[in-house]
């Protein structure tokens, strides 16, 4: 079944810092909800194993994440392909950054094809779960941005 996600997240940091954090492998690894394993397999390619738990439902899977079409610092594309026992996902999303006065608005829009058990029985909750995990990811990124003050500040 098709899964569409879109939304935005506002960061209280200048665009260049947000860009560097969003594309930093250590930050991506640290902020993926339920990450069990994270391995860099190419300059912009990662293999990620996640164990996701939402209430009584849990599942794990391994996906390949690729960062493409990077137009620093305003736009990149993320491709995700993989799955596990409860389903498979194949999709891509565009992430756009717009900075203004020390605030950066990140807008994302993605489409994926989800198959397997979770698609057959979980439609009711799929898009909301995806949104929740994206929200957790950005919130964690925001935390990292706040924790690491830029050099020269103060």
């Amino acid at each position, binding site marked *: 079944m098709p899964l569409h996600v879109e939304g935005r997240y506002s960061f209280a940091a200048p665009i260049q810092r947000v860009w560097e954090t969003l594309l930093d492998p250590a930050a991506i690894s640290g902020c993926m909800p339920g990450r069990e394993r994270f391995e860099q397999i190419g300059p912009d390619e990662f293999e990620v194993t996640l164990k996701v738990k939402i*209430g*009584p439902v849990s*599942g794990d899977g391994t996906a390949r994440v690729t960062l493409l079409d990077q137009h620093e610092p305003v736009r990149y594309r993320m491709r995700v392909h993989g799955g596990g026992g*409860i389903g498979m996902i194949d999709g891509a999303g565009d992430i756009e950054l717009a900075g203004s006065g020390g605030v950066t608005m990140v807008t994302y829009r993605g489409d994926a094809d989800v198959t397997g058990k979770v698609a057959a029985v979980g439609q*009711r*909750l799929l898009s*909301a779960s995806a*949104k*929740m995990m994206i929200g957790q990811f950005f919130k964690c990124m925001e935390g990292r941005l706040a924790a690491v003050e830029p050099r020269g500040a103060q």
Partner: protein
Amino acid sequence: MVPAEFGYVAPRTITEALALLERYGDSARLLAGGHSLIPLMKLRLAMPSMLIDLGEITELRGIRDDSGTLVIGATTTHATVAANELVRARYPVLAEAAGQIGDVQVRNRGTIGGSLAHADPAADLPAVMLALDAQLNICSPAGARLVAARSFFEGMFTTQLAATEMLTEIRLPPLPARTGTAYQKAANLASGYAIVGVAVVVTLDSDGAVAAARIGVTGAGAQPVRATTAEAALAGRVPGEANLSMAASAAGHDIEDPLDDMHASADYRRHLVAVHTRRALERAIAAAG
């Protein structure tokens, strides 16, 4: 449709159940009515290695008055809640909502505590608990704590309950005189789940103005919420066409991030919240007299 292998224990007291929960931790699930958990297990979306069945614990069941506060045991079934005289007389909104959950089989097995602890975003009762300002009693081996329904729900299928905690009682404070209540929902025709559900509790003062209004909304977002802007639009005013329609429309916008799925788009959910808030308010105000 066959669950993965799991162990099964059926303690007879809350203390025993809590000890088992502490022993098995995150790999265990508490089994109440099973009408959400068992289907998930049959699909192997949930694969707990141990089920702790609460069905033998008599102290978890039943409805009693505790000097004006109504106390409902966590494993009291929806059918029992809907038919109970005290509930019907004092909190008609709860009887009304419990009587509309799923179908007869679900209401005969499903429990009030199970529904709240499961925290399905489309469940009916969370909206009612918010509107009634319920207190939830949560026990762990370390002791008990009371949590307001309003801070209990944290997200989709996510509550304040820690892995070693159990919801044991729902405590409903008394409602003032001249209070009316109502529950309205747009139900999914196949499952009965609330695409949107609105529970309203309105108290009028001696001049017929709204002394207090609480509006709980379920189904619209990832977690149940109070429609606080809508409540504020009513407070202190005599209900009339202008402020009722303002409140209804405000309720739609009180849903920050509506669910958007095959059953209803985000915009349509906002619209349904407004429509059902209006209907629930009219009925509650008429009942408050």
